[in-house]
């Protein structure tokens, strides 16, 4: 826990000290550019949230009402965008909606010269909706599925028309679920880096995080970077607190376990609307994914795999990811051990949850870019940043993965503790022996899963590497970004495919390990 504290507070201290050393803070704060960036950050996040959640409502409603073959597949598909590295998604969006993309091509074929421009606000919104419409749908659908079966029977007994069902059943469900979903998505959009960096970035379409990056890498203006970082920090802090308040409690209600037929499935308008919502949402999510595969098919994969630069990037990515993941596991292990020592008595068990949550949201408040900026400013005066780069990237990637690793390992460790703590105490099992004989066999599988998640996260990350990357230190996403930035789209698509296969391979591997345990458990 101390280690995490040091890394984060060092970055924070560097930010504050630099800010304090600014001679005329008022000048910086009154800088028009600064406020334009802040305004745009909130504006694009607000619009993205509104579009994602607004469009998710009819899609969720349609999916909640209808049962059809392929529904499960569709829900699986909706889980995909968030698992994909952001750069890969951007590529897919450009392939579909870009100037020479499928959409403009189709429009031209139909005689309409739309020339939809994907760079700028439009592209940012498209990419954010691509990420968050499926996320919102999945979040809201959970609440719809919790409506007890008796409620639908009641509705059909009372003869409720669709409007009454909307008013008395569906809208109240949505009203309870929307704030949580919307605030999460707003948060994701405020801290979205890769999408804005690649699709925006111009003077009119820059968010705080991208501005920090530009200030450090192009303008060498640490003062502005620090000011922006502190603003982002304050903004995230406010948002995390606000989001925590908005997430309502969900009451679990016991009910008949069976699926019950809803009374509002007849009616042509409803069928048509639901069909349309589902079809459009499916196309919207599916097309960019297909486009990536198609573009990758165009690229000369054989040549790419043979390229030394690509190999270097793959090796570097792997080394960074393994180191970051191991470090993340070590930190988590230390954290869990510390918590275990702290709350060995049952009475303060809730301590555990609180500690886990606190360290999770710490990373949310302190986005990787801000953390990176802090270290960038700190190291700048003492050492060559680029020789320190690998270490910094590894540490920050490890911290980024921390909330996820905690979420996988925390409950498993807690369960193991509940199951074995008293037995171990009575047998005198402690320290290394306990770790070897009791904890390791129980926690081996969750550890593998956590390791894979942490690696996948690190491999897909562009944020920190964008600050610290160089010719000598290039990871796969960094290389992909360079090719994309120089409009070698086919190369980029090939790399995106490699990146995607790599990430999913890791997760699939971990999933298999988990599956084996479940089967042998039966």
């Amino acid at each position: 826990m101390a280690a995490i504290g040091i890394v984060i507070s060092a970055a924070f201290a560097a930010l504050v000290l630099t800010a304090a050393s600014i001679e005329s803070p008022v000048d910086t704060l009154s800088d028009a550019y600064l406020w334009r960036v802040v305004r745009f950050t909130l504006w694009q996040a607000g619009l993205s949230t509104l579009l994602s959640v607004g469009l998710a409502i009819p899609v969720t409603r349609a999916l909640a009402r209808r049962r059809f073959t392929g529904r499960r597949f569709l829900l699986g598909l909706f889980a995909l965008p968030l698992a994909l590295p952001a750069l890969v998604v951007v590529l897919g969006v450009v392939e579909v909606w870009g100037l020479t993309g499928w959409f403009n091509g189709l429009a031209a074929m139909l005689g309409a010269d739309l020339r939809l421009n994907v760079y700028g606000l439009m592209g940012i919104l498209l990419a954010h909706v691509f990420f968050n419409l499926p996320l919102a749908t999945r979040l809201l659908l959970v609440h719809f599925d919790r409506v007890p079966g008796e409620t639908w029977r009641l509705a059909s007994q009372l003869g409720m028309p669709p409007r009454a069902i909307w008013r008395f059943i569906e809208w109240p469900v949505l009203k309870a679920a929307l704030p949580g979903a919307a605030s999460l998505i707003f948060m994701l959009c405020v801290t979205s880096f890769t999408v804005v960096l690649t699709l925006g970035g111009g003077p009119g379409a820059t968010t705080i995080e991208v501005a920090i990056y530009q200030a450090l890498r192009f303008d060498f203006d640490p003062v502005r970077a620090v000011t922006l970082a502190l603003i982002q920090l304050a903004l995230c802090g406010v948002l995390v607190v606000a989001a925590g308040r908005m997430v309502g409690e969900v009451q679990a209600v016991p009910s008949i376990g069976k699926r019950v037929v809803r009374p509002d499935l007849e009616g042509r308008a409803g069928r048509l609307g639901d069909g349309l919502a589902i079809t459009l949402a499916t196309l919207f999510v599916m097309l960019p994914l297909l486009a990536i595969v198609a573009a990758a098919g165009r690229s000369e994969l054989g040549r790419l795999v043979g390229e030394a630069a690509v190999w270097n990037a793959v090796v570097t990515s792997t080394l960074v990811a393994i180191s970051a993941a191991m470090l993340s596991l070590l930190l988590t292990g230390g954290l869990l051990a510390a918590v275990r020592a702290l709350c060995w008595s049952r009475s303060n068990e809730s301590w555990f949850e609180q500690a886990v949550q606190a360290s999770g949201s710490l990373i949310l408040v302190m986005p990787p870019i801000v953390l990176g900026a802090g270290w960038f400013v700190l190291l700048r005066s003492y050492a060559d940043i680029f020789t320190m780069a690998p270490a910094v990237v590894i540490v920050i990637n490890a911290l980024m993965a921390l909330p996820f690793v905690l979420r996988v390992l925390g409950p498993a460790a807690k369960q193991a503790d509940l199951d074995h703590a008293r037995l171990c105490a009575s047998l005198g099992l402690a320290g290394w022996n306990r770790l070897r004989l009791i904890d390791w066999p129980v926690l081996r599988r969750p550890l593998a899963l956590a390791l894979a998640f942490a690696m996948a996260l690190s491999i897909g990350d562009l944020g920190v590497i964008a600050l610290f990357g160089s010719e000598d230190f290039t990871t796969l996403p960094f290389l992909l970004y360079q090719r994309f930035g120089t409009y070698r789209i086919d190369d980029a698509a090939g790399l995106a495919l490699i990146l995607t296969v790599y990430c999913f391979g890791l997760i699939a591997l971990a999933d298999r390990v988990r599956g084996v345990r479940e089967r042998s458990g039966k």
Partner: protein
Amino acid sequence: MTNVQLTLSDVQFAYEDWSVRFDFKLDAACFLAVIGPSGAGKSTLLNLIAGFERPCGGHIFANGDEITDLPPAARPVTMLFQENNLFHHLDLHTNVALGVSPALKLTEEDQKRVADAIARVGLASKDHRLPGELSGGERQRAAVARALVRDKPLLLLDEPFAALGPALRADMLNLVSDIHHETGVTIVMVTHHPDDARRAAGHTAFVAGGKVVELDRTDLLFVRDDVPGLRAYLRA
């Protein structure tokens, strides 16, 4: 209120490898208790009458009219479930008022009926509480109040008092029994407690293996020893 004569004529329903077949008549203004082992098809019987399950054969008549293919709302039936009879985010008054109009368009007279029904079940002072602020017994009373304003001639009770303690269960049973006598509503009540049947129901049906094994006056049925399976069920 018109009294229904309920007829199930060779009504069949199948689910995977499990099936039921019901064939019986029920006199008007009857209070029928349905007892029998778990999985015998008691709840399925109610779901078929209420229209929540569609039979794969046979006919259901209420008051001489065929209702086999009618949607639940068009049947002269109100059904009370064991749980979740109320919308959790609407107050008691609104929940009862939905029984009058699913769009909540109520005349002054309707309002009075709603208030009377709530008073009748003894919840007058709790008009604007949410279901979460009521006890389990009070929630079921509210559901009974809605059944009152719906004023359907057939009331189906699917173990609605099973989750209540013995004293409360007896209270609720008395309430339902009083309403039965006041309004002449026909009641079919599924119960796990033979005592409930003895206390309130004029007639009792013993259901086992997906069919009505015997239907008789309650006082007669419970002393009979020629009904296959009944003695074993009552001893258990």
